[in-house]
């Protein structure tokens, strides 16, 4: 079993020293400084005085910024919900597939997950933009339809109007689902894989339909896994920067974009710091809720 650190002080210190040093200096200290800045005030161009003010937090919950927080949470929530709906059947199929099919399906889900986020976002831009593949295909169909109409002697259907698929909220949600789907499928799969299959068989034998078995047996048993999938998807979606930045329009700003602006353009670090910490607290609240839920559930590991 675990031994007390006093048994091997030299080994303990040698193994703990470097990682602890790194964690403190290159992670906790930077975060601590941001935290301190969030109570400060800009005096001059680069100078910030630590006044212990809560003014930055007060500004962060002004309606303008509160709306962005609510919108970010809503977008992240919708993304998570869509990932769950799309991903659950996939996870179910992987769980009950044969060993060989299972390996291939897992690989299929994981390969995009390993692919660079920026490349995936770029690939979506190429699909969605005005001259993108979707609009090209639709335009081609439209053209074909126009020719058929002309042959039939109907009146011309006019020029094709490309759909505005990029730079709006739809694109942001689609992009977030595209990027985060593997985050949902993998924890769902690992939860479903641990289910006791005889319970499912019993339910089906005793006359419950597939849907009833799914909602009365599978979902309740897999609830801790679903909760962790939801959390793993929700947190990065809430703090997403790249997707709303590249796929969104002027009205699809999420909280990360506002934070970036405070630091890189508006040069209001104290306010940006306060916004970062509000985002961080929201993340912690989400984690706490998940922890409470999985503690309540008897099936939690």
């Amino acid at each position, binding site marked *: *079993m675990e*031994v*007390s650190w006093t048994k091997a002080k030299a*080994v303990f210190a040698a*193994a703990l020293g*470097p*990682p602890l040093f790194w*964690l403190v200096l*290159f*992670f*906790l*200290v930077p*975060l601590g*400084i*941001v935290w301190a*800045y969030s109570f400060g005030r800009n005096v001059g161009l680069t100078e910030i005085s630590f006044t212990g003010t809560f003014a930055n937090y007060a500004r962060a919950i002004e309606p303008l910024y509160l709306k962005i927080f609510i919108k970010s949470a809503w977008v992240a929530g919708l993304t998570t919900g869509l990932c769950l709906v*799309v991903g659950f059947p*996939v996870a*179910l*199929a992987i769980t*009950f597939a044969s060993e060989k099919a299972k390996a291939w*399906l897992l690989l299929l889900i*994981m*390969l*995009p997950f*390993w*692919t*660079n*986020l*920026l*490349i995936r976002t*770029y*690939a979506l*831009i*190429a*699909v969605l*933009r005005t*001259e993108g*593949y979707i609009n*090209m295909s639709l335009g081609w169909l439209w053209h074909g339809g126009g020719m058929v109409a002309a042959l039939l002697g109907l009146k011309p259907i006019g020029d094709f109007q490309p759909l505005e698929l990029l730079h709006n909220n739809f694109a942001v949600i689609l992009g977030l689902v*595209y990027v985060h789907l593997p985050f949902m499928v993998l924890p769902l799969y*690992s939860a479903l894989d641990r289910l006791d*299959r005889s319970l*499912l*068989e019993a339910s*089906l034998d005793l006359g419950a339909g*597939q849907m009833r078995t799914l909602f009365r047996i599978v979902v309740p048993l897999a609830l801790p896994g679903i909760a962790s999938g939801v959390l793993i998807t929700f947190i*990065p979606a*809430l703090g997403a920067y790249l997707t709303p930045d*590249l796929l969104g329009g002027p009205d699809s700003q999420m*909280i*990360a974009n506002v*934070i*970036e602006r405070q*630091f*890189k353009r508006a040069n209001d*670090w104290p306010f940006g710091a306060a916004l*970062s910490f509000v*985002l*961080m607290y929201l993340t912690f609240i989400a984690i706490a809720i998940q922890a409470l839920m999985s503690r309540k559930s008897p099936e939690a590991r």
Partner: protein
Amino acid sequence: MAKARKYPVGPLEYLRRWQMQAWLAAVGLFLYVPLIALMAFSFNDSRRNIVWKGFTLKYYDKAFHDASLIEAFGNSLTIAAVSTVVSLALGAMVALVLWRFRFPGKTVLDGALALPIVVPEICMGVAMLVFFARVMPWPQGLIWPLNLGAIIIAHISFSFPFVAVVVRARMASFNREMEEAARDLGAGEWRTIVDVILPHMAPSLVAGALLAFTLSLDDFVITFFTAGPDTVTFPVKVYSMVRFSVTPEVNAASTILIVLTVILTAVALRLQGDPAVTAGHAPADKS
């Protein structure tokens, strides 16, 4: 297989139901069509990049002669390599300590180590920006690769806790009797670690290295906040190119990275034999 088809679909054979097959096909298309289109059109002989005009490799030629793109690519690989090595060492060390020892403040360390994993990227990015702007300004104009130091430090900070998670999951399946045997046979603390514990840890080190490498190669947000004007990584470079327009050169460069990713994943799977390991999950000890 052909024989199996004659039997009716079993109640739990979801994969053999057409609804499920259709759903999987749709999800597969959703995940892969954009990427495959991107790769296919990198070979397209048309600047407008939408209508197929014929096969060409000229955008690869262009990408390979684009000095700034090559530099960014080299920077990314260097950062990922250095960050992986250091993360692996730090992650394994802290995992070992948490697995092996009982000490005051263990829960605190455990919690602090989880922070870099859960803190939103943007928060970590601004923390690094502030740190390298105010506390430890990284000297400008250093020779390569020292000018990448700040980015490397930031990447190690978010990578090594992931390595620690993977290694710890693996250590959970360690048979303590092996260690006792080593001790009975006269091995000291170091000797036990090197000869008994490290070999058991090895598969998770491969998985952890792969994870750290990909995390580093993939990262845009934290690098974006840490990088100076003269230190461009591949994602940052692609970002600035994408902002302007969709060009075949970006397609070509992206295709190269995708192929690299696929090769790395294939190597990892070969080494591991179990796809679940490479996802950062606890490896199932099947032996």
